[in-house]
């Protein structure tokens, strides 16, 4: 079985400046890929190239085996997308907006539109003009619109923006069930790292247009050592001591709080050395590495 999307050497340049360079990845059907990265990492540009909204400078995109360059119409027929802030015809109702999109595809019944409205939980708001919808309601309607032609691949840019926690939970449940039951592949860009960790089967972390890492979320998180968080009393002295050891990596520092990882060194030996250093330890804990830690390590924090 071929992958849902295969991207090879995807590059986008504006004049001579590379926004996305030589991006290569592929996703299996039914996967949920989280595209993560700081602002300006090239996430939205990548998603726009995948939906043919902007032309690529170089590279190939195969959607379900079809080349986006050679057969754009057929390839895009398999893709549903909601990019940027959801945009609708504000003076029309949710049903009228969906009916218009349905007509662009041809034979999509009113019953199907009703089902989608119900699926995203907007059944009680169908007579209201979209102008009066909250951002969260628009996000849900945007998802219904992206699903209207039963696409095999759904691309969502920041789908949780404007959703309340309950709305987010429902959205993630819906994505999970569609991926598991209908083998729909999702590509989601988001800043909600903890949610992405729970939701995505795969992650792709971008920075400055380049793929830093791509793989199965669980494997990536568990492939590295655990992290140690410390609260020490003298930031300057502590930083100097931590930096002086080749076997200690400082992952993050916030005033007196340090997050570190120890390499080729047992925790007991580390603890002995720490006590011997004379630093006063207010707090010390070991925690499992999270997607957020991996992200911070790779991208060196938010831009």
């Amino acid at each position, binding site marked *: 079985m071929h992958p849902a999307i295969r991207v090879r050497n995807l590059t986008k340049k504006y004049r001579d400046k590379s926004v996305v360079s030589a991006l290569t990845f592929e996703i299996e059907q039914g996967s949920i890929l989280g595209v993560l990265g700081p602002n300006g990492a090239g996430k939205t540009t990548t998603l*726009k190239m995948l*939906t*043919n*909204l*902007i*032309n690529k400078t170089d590279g190939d995109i195969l959607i379900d085996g079809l080349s986006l360059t050679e057969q754009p*119409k057929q390839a*895009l*027929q398999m*893709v*549903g*997308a909601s*990019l*940027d*802030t*959801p*945009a*609708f*015809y504000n*003076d029309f109702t949710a049903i009228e907006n969906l009916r*218009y*999109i349905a*007509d*662009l*595809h041809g034979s999509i019944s009113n019953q199907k539109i009703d089902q989608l409205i119900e699926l995203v939980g907007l059944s009680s708001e169908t007579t209201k003009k979209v102008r009066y919808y909250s951002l969260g309601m628009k996000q849900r309607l945007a998802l219904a619109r*992206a699903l*209207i*032609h039963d696409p095999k691949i759904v691309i969502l840019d920041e789908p949780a923006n404007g959703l309340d926690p309950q709305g987010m939970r429902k959205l993630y449940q819906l994505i999970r069930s569609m991926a598991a039951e209908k083998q729909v592949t999702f590509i989601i860009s988001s800043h909600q790292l903890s949610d992405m960790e729970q939701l995505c089967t795969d992650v792709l972390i971008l920075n400055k247009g380049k793929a830093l890492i791509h793989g199965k979320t669980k494997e990536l998180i568990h492939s590295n050592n655990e992290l140690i968080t410390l609260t020490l009393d003298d930031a300057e002295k502590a930083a100097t001591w931590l930096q002086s050891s080749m076997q200690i990596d400082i992952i993050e520092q916030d005033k007196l709080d340090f997050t570190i990882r120890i390499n080729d060194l047992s925790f007991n030996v580390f603890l002995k050395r720490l006590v011997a250093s004379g630093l006063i330890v207010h707090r010390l804990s070991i925690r499992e590495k999270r997607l957020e830690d991996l992200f911070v390590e790779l991208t060196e924090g938010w831009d």
Partner: protein
Amino acid sequence: MDIITRMEIKRLLQQKIVYFFLGLFIFAVIAYSGLLTSLALRNLVNADEKVLGGLYFPEFMLRFYSTNIGALFMAMVTALFICEDRQTGLLIQPLLHGRTKKEVLSAKMKMLCFFSTMMITAITIIVYGISFLRWGTQIFSTPVFYQTMSKYALVALSFIPLELFLILLAFHARHTIMVLGETFLLLIFFVLLNQSFPKAASLFPLYYPYQWIINQEFQALTWPEIFPGLLNFFFYSSLFYFLILTRSNKINFDR
């Protein structure tokens, strides 16, 4: 008519600005037909009888829409449907559902050219309707009635190259305010050009409505006066139409 054009027309009919503009125009026509033609004001403004009413009144009112006001109003509507749609992300929606840029551009062109013609039709109905209530059947007296109607038709045609130019401008200027500002500057430039170098001005479509409606107001037009204008409109309309469609892939739909 394709689905995108139908949707655009449906949206157009919901635009309050269109009804507001027509409302203002109705008010202006009533004001001119009622107040300015009263005996007291007739003496005060000491105006030509042709200007003030009766048979010539519909042609007199055409000057209020045919050139600058009409161009600016159409620039505003065009920018609303192109720049604003791009800013909100609406322009890309048909592309995300299998339609091409060419189809979207074609729908915008059809809708806006249809709208510019509908506006002239609405204005004709408003002017003749109010004139009929004020002066009765004399406004339909020939040959002035035919002369006026032909000028309304020529103005409608003059809006097609203008509208296509505005579409091209709106796709390249990113914001509504830029489209309005550039249209305004262009109109000023054209007035200056027309005053200083009328021969050079005659190369552009805007020259003809000025010539027919303002310089030759209340005069019958001859075929040799009309023909170069029609040729000019055809040339520029075709040029802008093909320019928009052939450059469709280079036109940025993204916000």
